[in-house]
């Protein structure tokens, strides 16, 4: 069974088309890199899959549950970490974890929570309110909260922003580990090196439309067949190339 099924997803705001007719599936254990230029519809797709935005048209299925009809079951299976994590400023890190454990009805969550905050080097700040935390630390707290309930689907929007090298390594390792355990993980990032390093599949969006969806293995094989020695960056620029801009000054 696919962890995520997106069928003919459309999202429009008045006359602006954010996403048009997007369809794809993600199997458990996949790490999908969602890439595209600014305004391509990456965050809209993630926010819709997280249940924050309603699709204008189409179906979104998470862990076998349609978000339109079984939103609670679908949300229980997923975790979404936005690019700028917003925490309850006056709650401590531990209280955030306590709330998440309660929301997802977890029993005996404390040892795992302790392990998480140790992994992400937050032990010293365990009882500090989140208003005092740096951008990177807030990101770590959001990731701990997301990991705590063992979601089957995880979505990261620019996960490495503001993190130190230790945290970057910890996150990369944890993502690989979770994928190996069967979680489907979607990562939206402009860092193509991260996608190349971490992801097993890639989905490139441009102006709200899918321009490529393939596994990294398929891409490599195709490149060999075509005899092209193309990096992911070259591929990205080739597929999302903007038409040459003509300016009145230049004309």
């Amino acid at each position, binding site marked *: 069974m696919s962890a995520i099924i997106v069928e003919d997803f459309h999202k429009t705001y008045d006359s602006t088309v954010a996403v048009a007719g997007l369809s794809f599936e993600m199997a458990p254990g996949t790490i999908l890199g969602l890439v595209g230029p600014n305004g391509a519809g990456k965050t809209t797709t993630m926010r819709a899959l997280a249940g924050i935005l309603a699709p204008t048209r189409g179906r979104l299925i998470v862990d076998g549950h349609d978000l339109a009809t079984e939103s609670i079951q679908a949300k229980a299976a997923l975790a979404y970490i936005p690019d700028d994590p917003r925490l*309850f*400023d006056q709650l401590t890190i531990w209280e955030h974890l306590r709330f998440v454990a309660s*929301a997802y009805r977890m029993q005996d969550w404390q040892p795992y929570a302790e392990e998480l905050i140790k992994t992400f080097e937050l032990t010293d700040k365990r009882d500090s309110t989140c208003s005092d935390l740096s951008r990177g630390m807030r990101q770590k707290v959001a990731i701990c909260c997301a990991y705590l309930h063992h979601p089957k689907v995880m979505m990261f929007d620019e996960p490495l922003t503001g993190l130190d090298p230790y945290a970057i390594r910890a996150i990369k390792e944890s993502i690989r580990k979770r994928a190996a355990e069967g979680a489907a993980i979607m990562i939206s990032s402009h860092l193509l090196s991260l996608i190349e390093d971490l992801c097993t599949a890639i989905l490139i969006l441009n102006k709200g439309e899918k321009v490529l969806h393939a596994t990294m293995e398929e891409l490599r094989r195709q490149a060999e067949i075509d005899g092209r020695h193309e990096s992911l960056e070259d591929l990205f620029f080739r597929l999302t190339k903007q038409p040459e801009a003509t300016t009145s000054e230049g004309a």
Partner: protein
Amino acid sequence: MNDALWLLLKLRLKAWGRRLVRNASTVKGAIMTAVFALLMCFWGFSLIAGQALDPKKSATADPVAVQRFGAPGLAMFCIMIVLTSGARPPVLFTPAEIQFLFCGPFSRRQLLTYKLLTQFLMTLPFSMFMAIVFRGVAGSYLSAAFGALLIFSFLQLFGIAVNFTASYFSALAYNRFRKVALFAILAVAAVGGAILVQRYAAGGDLLQMLKDVESNTVVYNVLTPLRWYSQVVTAKSIAQFSLPALGALGINVFLLFYVYVLDAKFLETVSTASEKVYAKIERMRRSGGSPFQSHSQSRVIRRQVPSFPFWGGVGPIFWRQFVTAQRTQKAFLMMVVVMGIGAIGPTIAMLTKQNESAGMPWGIAGMMLMMSLFVHQFLAFDFRADVDRIEVLKTLPLPAWRIVLGQLLAPTVFASLVQLVLVSVVYAVLGKIGLLVAIVALCALPFNLLLVGIDNLMFLLLPTRMVATTPGDFSHAGRQMVVFFGRMLALFLAMLLPGIFGGITYAVTRNPYVAGVVGWLLLVLVSFAPVPFVSWAFRRFDVARDTPP
């Protein structure tokens, strides 16, 4: 409600208390909290003493009039809610709530219950405070508190009900309906206003006319359910209290039931609108609390303000603040209009009814200058709006006093401009007191420079975000009071010098013009007095330690 949401509510309440204690636990915070507590005790004691000594005298309004006009007042609020409902979300969620709750395993109804409960809890202390304000007309403190709670809950539920109902129609249809309703209401108001003005001009009694409208059978019956709320507030016995309280409670319960039955799909609308609202609040916090600087619309600037001369470094600093202020010109104009209608309108109306007296120009000029106390609060184009940019200012290769002078000039100039515009309107309407314009033109600049300087000094010594982050933050309220008293004291001391020397000059020469010139020169001198102090405060401001959270 979901157990996790109860837990969140409990944790947030605990966190709120923790924050208050933390704010009050620093030396500055403790002093500010003590000031606030002292003043509140003094206020509370004066209220209780006034009530005990002479209950009738301390009444603010006639309870019968409250019963009578409370319902039309509430109806006006409801109309305003209907007319403005498209412009704001029915309920607001914080960014953290959106992140954790909207993606969490919660139903819409659970989230709505959580939000309604949060709002209700916030209404509780506010209602208890308002019960003190209503003391003059209330039957008892309990009836006032319960009445206030019912009224605020009603307004909140009514707003949500209107918004949820609107979401059942298309946005276009709803906006059309609102436009038609707005025109109809304006037309009725215009006709009613014209009739009232005509009767008033013919010597009619305005209050009696309003009473006549309210006594009209149709109006009276339509407003009966709303009258229950004011009857609860003014009830003096259980018998007077029971029925209206049951009726008002019934309306609130009905609205609650209606909102739940609708089960509107509010998540997307609310998340988008809430994010905008919180982004605006965040911009306001960064910009010194000025609502004018919180606009987010990106726009192409076609007309550039030319650079000012260098003036030893003052010019570029002044230019930057001037450009920022100039870019808020729409809001600036709106403020002039609002202040014009609010302050100048009644003044003109009053003066045209009275005979012009010799002291009138001085009176109006004094009023205009006193306006400085409030005007530049909205024009914080100085250190107050640069709390996150002080480190940039500190890196500039300029002496502190020149940076300070550049920072203080923009609000000074703009505040003076507002006053000059308003006083010119008075002059244009009344015609005879042109002296006003001259007095305000001469005194506004030094007077405003003095006030802006004092405000910036207080800000750099007691830095804070102008928008409080914690509701009910007593240390923040205390700080505002200290700043206000400090400003008044400094103003008094600063005005003393020109006053004394102007007076002595007049006593010696018997010439008011010479005395005026001496007083004005001293005022100009005094207006620059805060600059060295602000420079010292700017130099000692430690970005790492003093930047407020």
